[in-house]
């Protein structure tokens, strides 16, 4: 059988989007590992304790490193402090935005909302737009034409990947989106996933943020110093590398257009510092399969269902050793993906939607 998959169109209003809806890939029912209800309820239970502790550490370190960097500004000794500050500002906020957006980090809703707003500002993601884009990401994970959060499209644009380790393209696009939203315009792609009733809120927040950045720039000009921008805005660039390092592994090099998270998501075991910054999102198959489980319960969930999942990548390095060659092969054959072996105890992969791409990958 000769398989000639059609070209991927990542626009949310393009041909792939239309095909995904027609074929039933959009808003499909996804595979789940069976977990007894009693255990699932225990895993889903909310608690303020872990997130209050982690947020206190995060904000405490952020303020400490930022203050030390500012105090030592002008000399080389400020560099290590700003490197740490940058990661806490430009990377740790990726996971804080994410977990608080799900409403699972804290038990108390206003705490989720407060950290969500702060993290969204730092990571430069409009809290309205990204709440809805992430909802779509969970409905249609790595479905081409439907998922607005596909980090590496096929064939991979490796220059874009490298530039984003320094936040360059992401921050640029975020700024363009902010200015566009602040001027009252919601883009065509954004309109596909943000309800009309929510769009004015996206515009209002963009205007507030624009005002904050303009004040920061004005202060920098007034002082004749980069320091205000080193504290607000630029950390999204010089501190982005860790969230890109970990985030690329979530789905990079794996299948698209499937309805089984074991095929399109990757769990990676990693060091405790990265897990603190990343808030356990290294358990990514588990998170996508059961998004109601808080970050602090994901290791328990992993232990409970690992018999049904591909073996996790044992380290960041191992994850990259799997993912990078897949990116290289996708430059020549964009239908290639890594299909990871399931343990004998697992139920087989769902085959309904990915038979064609699976063939193309062989």
């Amino acid at each position: 059988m000769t398989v000639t998959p059609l070209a991927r169109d990542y626009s949310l209003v393009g041909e792939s989007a239309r095909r995904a809806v027609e074929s039933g890939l959009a808003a499909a029912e996804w595979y789940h590992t069976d977990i007894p209800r009693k255990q699932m309820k225990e895993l889903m239970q909310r608690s303020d304790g872990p997130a209050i502790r982690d947020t206190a550490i995060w904000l405490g370190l952020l303020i400490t490193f930022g203050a030390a960097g500012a105090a030592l500004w002008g000399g080389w000794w400020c560099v290590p402090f700003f490197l740490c500050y940058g990661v806490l500002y430009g990377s740790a906020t990726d996971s804080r935005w994410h977990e608080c957006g799900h409403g699972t980090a804290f038990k108390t809703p206003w705490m989720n909302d407060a950290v969500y707003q702060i993290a969204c500002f730092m990571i430069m993601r409009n809290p309205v737009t990204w709440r809805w884009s992430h909802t779509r990401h969970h409905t249609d994970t790595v479905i081409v034409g439907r998922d607005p959060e596909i980090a590496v499209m096929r064939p991979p644009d490796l220059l874009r990947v490298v530039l984003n380790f320094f936040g360059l393209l992401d921050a640029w696009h975020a700024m363009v989106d902010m200015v566009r939203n602040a001027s009252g315009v919601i883009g065509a792609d954004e309109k596909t996933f943000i309800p009309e009733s929510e769009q004015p809120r996206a515009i209002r927040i963009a205007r507030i943020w624009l005002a904050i950045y303009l004040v920061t720039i004005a202060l920098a000009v007034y002082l004749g110093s980069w320091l205000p921008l080193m504290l607000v805005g630029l950390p999204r660039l010089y501190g982005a590398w860790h969230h890109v390092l970990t985030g690329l592994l979530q789905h990079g090099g794996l299948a698209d257009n499937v309805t089984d998270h074991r095929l399109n998501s990757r769990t990676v075991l990693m060091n405790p510092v990265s897990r603190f910054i990343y808030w356990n999102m290294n358990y990514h198959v588990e998170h996508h399969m059961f998004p109601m489980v808080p970050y602090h319960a994901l290791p328990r969930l992993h232990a409970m269902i690992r018999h049904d999942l591909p073996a996790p990548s044992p380290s960041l390095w191992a994850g990259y050793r799997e993912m990078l060659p897949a990116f290289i092969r996708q430059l020549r054959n964009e239908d290639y993906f890594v299909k990871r072996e399931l343990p004998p105890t697992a139920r087989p992969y769902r085959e309904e939607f990915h038979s064609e791409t699976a063939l193309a990958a062989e």
Partner: protein
Amino acid sequence: MSDWIEACAADDIDEEDVIRFDHAGRTFALYRSPEDEFFATDGLCTHEQIHLSQGLVMGDIIECPKHNGRFNYKTGAARGAPVCVNLRTYPVKVDAGKVFVQLG
């Protein structure tokens, strides 16, 4: 007014939990509150047709298992993004240890 439909035994639902109930081609969610009261709503989230019976009950809130949208299951009120449309509720009574729902 419709008849009362026997849905399940009261003991079938744990305290502060939810179960699924299908009847006449429709699906519903039945709840038992922490105060030991019983409630019924449509079974699917108004956002993306996900069964709420797999979700988490917290006090008077049911959270959808897919996108974490929240409803007050006692009133059906949507409680924030991504749910914008209220959930339909149905009268419930408990008689002789059985839960009955009045389906409109």
